[in-house]
């Protein structure tokens, strides 16, 4: 799996716009947002359940 949206150094060095990994695969970012949101909900729920 190639996370880089650039095929060469030249392309990367002279990039315009998004340079982050998986910028060429928007679905990956969508999945990551969903996982991050799930972590957040998990955190909120756990804050009610943690007792000592």
């Amino acid at each position, binding site marked *: *799996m*190639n*996370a*880089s949206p*650039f095929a*060469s*150094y*030249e392309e*990367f*060095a002279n*990039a315009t716009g998004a*340079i*982050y*990994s*998986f*910028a060429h695969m928007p679905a990956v*970012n969508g999945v*990551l*947002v969903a*996982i*991050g949101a799930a*972590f*957040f909900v*998990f*955190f909120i729920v*756990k*804050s009610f359940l*943690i007792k*000592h």
Partner: protein
Amino acid sequence: MEDKAVEFLGTFVSESFYYWASVLMLLIHVGFIAYEGGVSRTKNVLATMTKNLLTLSSVGISFFLFGFWIYNAFPFWPFTGPLLTPFTNADSLSETVAAALPYANGALPWAEAMGPNVSDHMTTVFWFAFALFAMTTASILSGAVIERIKVGGYLILSVILGSVAWVIAAAWGWNYWGWFTTKLGYHDFGCSAVVHGVSGFFALGVLIVLGPRIGKFVNGKAMPILPHNLPLTMVGLMLIFVGFYAFLAACAIMLPGYEGITTIYGTPMTLSAIGSSTTLALAAGIMGAYVSSKGDPFFTISGGLAGIITIGAGIDLYSSPLILVLAFCGAYVMPKIAVLIEKFGIDDVVGAFAVHGFCGLIGAILPGIFAAGYIQGEGYPPINLGGQVLGAVICCVLLGFIPGYVSALILSKFGLLRVSREEELEGLDIAECGYNAYPEGGISAVSVKDTDPAPAPAGIPATAKLAGEGA
């Protein structure tokens, strides 16, 4: 005239940027002092904080004498070029290596560039930033070994770590010409392995030799030794967070004449994304450690740092959602690692190995997956998993664990590593500072009567005793 003014403005912006970023990085040390002081017991507070303070001297001076030169002299050696010494003949070098030679010679303590020089505004401000980086590495060790290490032993270890071990790692893996990058495609923007991995594993090596504090393990079972002031520790970590924003900002390269900001590898980046990603990593890291440790305050706040270190190597290339997920996961695992190494009888007081060593190692490997394929220079291999693993292991094991273990072993053989049992039981404040941090606590235990004043309790500074007699 106008062109010269514009040119000067570019120089001034670069010079000012590194100057103020370095000043803010000093907050890392303010934080470390508070963090360690809070974690220690009342009988060791002053000795603990003073030991950390002395890091500024031991690393600051040794980094001036030889550390900065090592960084500039080692990037090619031993695979892509020679060690750059004052005796290196520029005519015998390739064009690329010859271009680096002035930087190595300019980093010598007697060089013209290492002082006020109106034709070079950048060398000394870079030394300033690098010196703060170096002090940070040694401070990571400082917290792990508190309450039983000799000050002198610690100072020697801080020089080895802060001015030699991590500096070689930086020359190889965090340098425009470093062979990690040119040969392996290695990428470590925020120094996950170069600073944190080296320091955390160095600390682990020292801890194995140093041994646990008296009373930490009873019949092989770990006993809790609670911090005397956890609120101070938490405030300390918040200050470390502030300092780390500056640390990561100072990893960006913005030189006079540049048309954009680059990483140390010469690749494009934005400073604004460093700010947003650091904030997300901090938030996600705290969240992950909170859940994982079931709300333990010490681990929860350490999670912020664990999150930042986990994403540090690829922070310039990761998207925001990726930062959130990776930082959460790294910080979630961190408390488990801290508990695990305790099961091996290792007394890491501040969790330095779990936070810096483990997260630094993992953080440096992750770009091999989540930033794979980026090419950082013409003819360089792309970022790849093998290169990241090899670079991270060299940093953590070859430049971290082994030097830490061996140097601690040598110090131990000569009786220079650990304080005596009596000193440890009495508390290092009395042995090393001459008095305790909280003398009023002792005074309040004495009944206040008009007649027959009680003798001043041990642990009160001489000045306080004198003041009491005069009253």
